[in-house]
């Protein structure tokens, strides 16, 4: 079994996976995607999950963020033991603790840039959702694009809206799945700068999945996944 522990043991652990496995049934029998993963991530830490395509890193990210359930093992996120919660309770935990940035941006097509950023605060019933969103959009350099719909924005701009939305929830942990995967190098590095600077500013824990070695190198720690296991 492989082990992955944080470099700085003085910070409290915010994400913890113990002996996590994921098995799915396919037409050709059972497929083991993750096998006995143990992982701890401390508050304020930035961690890159790297590995080849199909290694299981995205599945692990989903499980750590409470988007998916493991077949066995225990996952903790902040005060919650995710694996003991149902979907309703996991959603509550996500709303409270987690922010996301996706490779495919995942903005809501029917909402404007501003409305997309307002969404997390609105869902929490926050009264100053608009002011906060205006501020965040300005922070990512899109103050002049409030009323634009996602299809009217470039890829880089869409991802900046997505980053603003991720921080609108003031998450404890930000999960990012290939945040630069759909962007050119220059735009990608601007987005990365943005994520890291906001991460610093909001004192967020960052967990990201990437192929990009330079991006992985900017993180405090890298964990490589191969064939469903942590290899270093």
């Amino acid at each position: 079994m492989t082990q992955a522990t944080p470099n700085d043991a003085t910070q409290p652990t915010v994400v913890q996976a113990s002996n996590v496995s994921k098995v799915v049934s396919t037409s050709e029998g059972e497929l083991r995607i993750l096998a006995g993963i143990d992982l701890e991530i401390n508050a304020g830490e930035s961690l890159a999950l790297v590995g080849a395509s199909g290694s299981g890193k995205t599945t692990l990210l989903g499980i750590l963020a409470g988007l998916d359930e493991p077949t066995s093992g225990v996952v903790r996120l902040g005060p919650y033991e995710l694996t003991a919660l149902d979907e309703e309770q996991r959603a509550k935990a996500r709303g409270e603790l987690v922010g996301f940035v996706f490779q495919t941006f995942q903005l809501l097509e029917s909402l404007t840039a501003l409305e997309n950023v307002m969404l997390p605060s609105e869902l929490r019933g926050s009264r100053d959702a608009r002011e906060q969103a205006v501020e965040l959009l300005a922070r990512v350099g899109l103050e002049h694009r409030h009323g634009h719909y996602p299809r009217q924005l470039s890829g880089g701009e869409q991802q900046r809206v997505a980053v603003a939305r991720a921080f609108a929830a003031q998450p404890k942990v930000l999960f990012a799945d290939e945040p630069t995967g759909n962007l050119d190098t220059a735009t990608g590095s601007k987005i990365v700068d943005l994520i890291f600077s906001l991460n610093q500013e909001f004192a967020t824990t960052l967990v990201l999945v990437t192929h990009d070695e330079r991006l992985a190198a900017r993180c405090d720690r890298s964990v490589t996944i191969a064939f469903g296991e942590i290899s270093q």
Partner: protein
Amino acid sequence: MNWRLSRMLAWRDWRSGELGLLMLALVVAVASVTAISLFVDRLQQAMLNESADFLAADRYVGSSRELPPSFRDLAQARNVQAVDTLLFPSMVFAGEELNQLVSVKAVSPGYPLRGRLRVATQPFGVGVVTQALPELGEVWLDSRLFPALGVALGDTIEVGLAKLTISNVITSEPDRGGGMFDWGPRLLMRMADVPATEVVQPGSRLTYRLLLRGDDDDLEALKEDFDLQPGQSWVGIKESSPSIGSALARAERFLLLGGLLAVLLAGLAVVLAAARYARRHYDHVAVLKTLGTGPNAILASYVGVLLLVAAVAIAVGLIVGFGLHWLILLALQELMPIELPPPGVRPLVLGSITGLICTMAFALPAFIHLRNVSPMNVIRRDLGATPPSRYLSYSMAAAGVIALLLWYTQDVLLTLWALGGTSLTLVIFGALGLLLLRGTRVLGTQAGSLWRFALASLQRRHRENLVQMLVIGLAIMLILILVLLRTALLSEWQQQIPEGAPNHFVMNLQPEQVPELQAQLDAAQLPFDEAFAMVRGRVVEVNGLSAKEHRAAQGEQDRPGANIGSERNLTWTATLPQGNSLVSGQWWAEASAASEVSLEEEYAREAGVSLGDELRFDIGGRQLTARVTSLRRLDWESMRPNFFIIFSPGALESFPVTYMTSFHLPVDQKRFLNGLLTSFPTVTVIEVDALIARIQSIISRVTQAVELVLYLVLVAGCLVLVASIQASRDARMHEHALLRALGGTRALVAGTLAIEFAALGMLAGTIGAIGAEVTVALLQTQAFDLPARAHPWVWLLGPLLGAVLIAGVGMISTRSLISTPPMLVLRGLS
């Protein structure tokens, strides 16, 4: 429920056009149901009123004896209007020489309770509606009595011992031609004048009627109150005129079937539109879930969205439906100069509840799926919803369909037929559809690039296409069924009373008068029927028991209407008459010398007589015994002379006999009757031309209603087409953008689409044609009592209709797909 989130989602989806199709489908569902039921409701009421005109009342109680005065009090207590009439034949005299047998109708003030009296200012003049009745001491006469009696308006005639003044020419009254003795020219007088005539004596042929008008419930309750005795009959439109009764019953069934199909089609459109909306929101929901929205909150929010949409759609649908029904009425104003009763609230309630049921049963399941969308969808696409909830949605849709059908048709049998037929069709045609799709793949590999792309595209989405094919096939099937049934019913109705059908019956002809009369009809070039011998007689014994004892022995089976002892017209014939079919027993041999008798099956059943029974008849005081050797079924709608009791030839030979025949007299040759009556003063002529004209007018109105319902169903069907094409639009858009990005020209994309849609339509049309043919054959034989027939043109029309409709609608609704730059599409869907 999170109304704030629902409102926000609904408003934003509406603004971006996401809810448009769902809203439209619901509006069409509610609007077409509202319009059809408003129209049908008003038309049905109008048709019932019109039919009630036949009786001059909603119901009546008839008897050959005076009805007890307590009936009027009971009617008053139930808030039902009641008016007395009395019918009897009588000789009237004008001066010393001229006399004529007339049919007298004596009426009380208030007559008629339904329909109108028409009078003319001179004999054979055009009739105009009047509210008046003859004054006391006055009579109104039929046009042809004026020349026959040699009288004019203002003259006096004698009816029995009373002298009455002729004050008007009566051209029509609503309940003309209603009874056995109600033939001959009409004389209308006041009931209060009857005693003075002294013609009403014991043994007179009298028909007393108490006409009634009121609410259906009150009338039914009144029937119970009356506690009718044998000899008193309760008559509504269905009893009084079987032709109109069955035409109305069929029309009702047909309109209901039409309404039912519109609901089903609209329901299909709602299913498709809701499924598309839900599918387009999988990512949306996944994102909301990653942002911390739980499954219950998702469900509550989207149900909220749906309820908001339903509320708006129902409101809009009701308004549109109401407007639509007014438009229909306006368009038909010329054709339908009948006063429609004001619309009731029921159609609006029907529309609203239909909208709500459509929403809950057809749209809600797709929305419930959203609850189960995995948040992992944001990272890994195509996860969709978990399968178990699909069972829920199928059962909800099925429950909704059953609830709607049952509620809408109030007919369990029709509902079961529709459901059974649809389910069986779906299973069989699912298999057939797969085979057809496989076939196109084989064809496609050998075709040119345009065809290859198109057929490959059909094959690639074979699951979606199969569903789409079944849905469109079902829509085409429903439309074809409606067209087929309409054609079948209309031609059958029209055949019922063919051009030149006999409209006058001549009775009481002496044997030697028959050839003379036929010569006169020949000379006037009027077509006539064969002459039937007729003897009046009654059954006095059944198997040795007197008729009274037999009735008592029959116990409960004996009903007031089946009085075996009453006097009947008897005839004899060697061969089974036209329009008669043998149900059991054997028709006699031509040379048979035995006394045999054949009975109409319904008459035999009600009288409690079976094959082999021995009946003793009293004919003018002489008695005759005959054995029942066959039972017949009659075509009551044939307008030909029909007999309950037919003897074998020879059995009645020694009895005094008269003949009856029938002929067709065009309306402009009515004066011919005067010459006829002068030549044969003893004969009786029954005029049924007015009755036939009434039946035809009702049938033509029913036909118009049926056509309208067809158009509305067609609109609903087209919406299903649009919805089903829209359902696959996103996937197509992406593929064709790719095709164009890879160098495909617009012409290639357009051609591919056209071929794909046309092929899909053709396959769907083939399925529809097969389904329609089978269902119509079943419906015709099982529900409408018509013979089944094959319709070869349907096999051509189905696929053609499918190809043209789907290619047309498909190309229109995907034209943006061809004109949108591929970059926009690829980025928009990336």
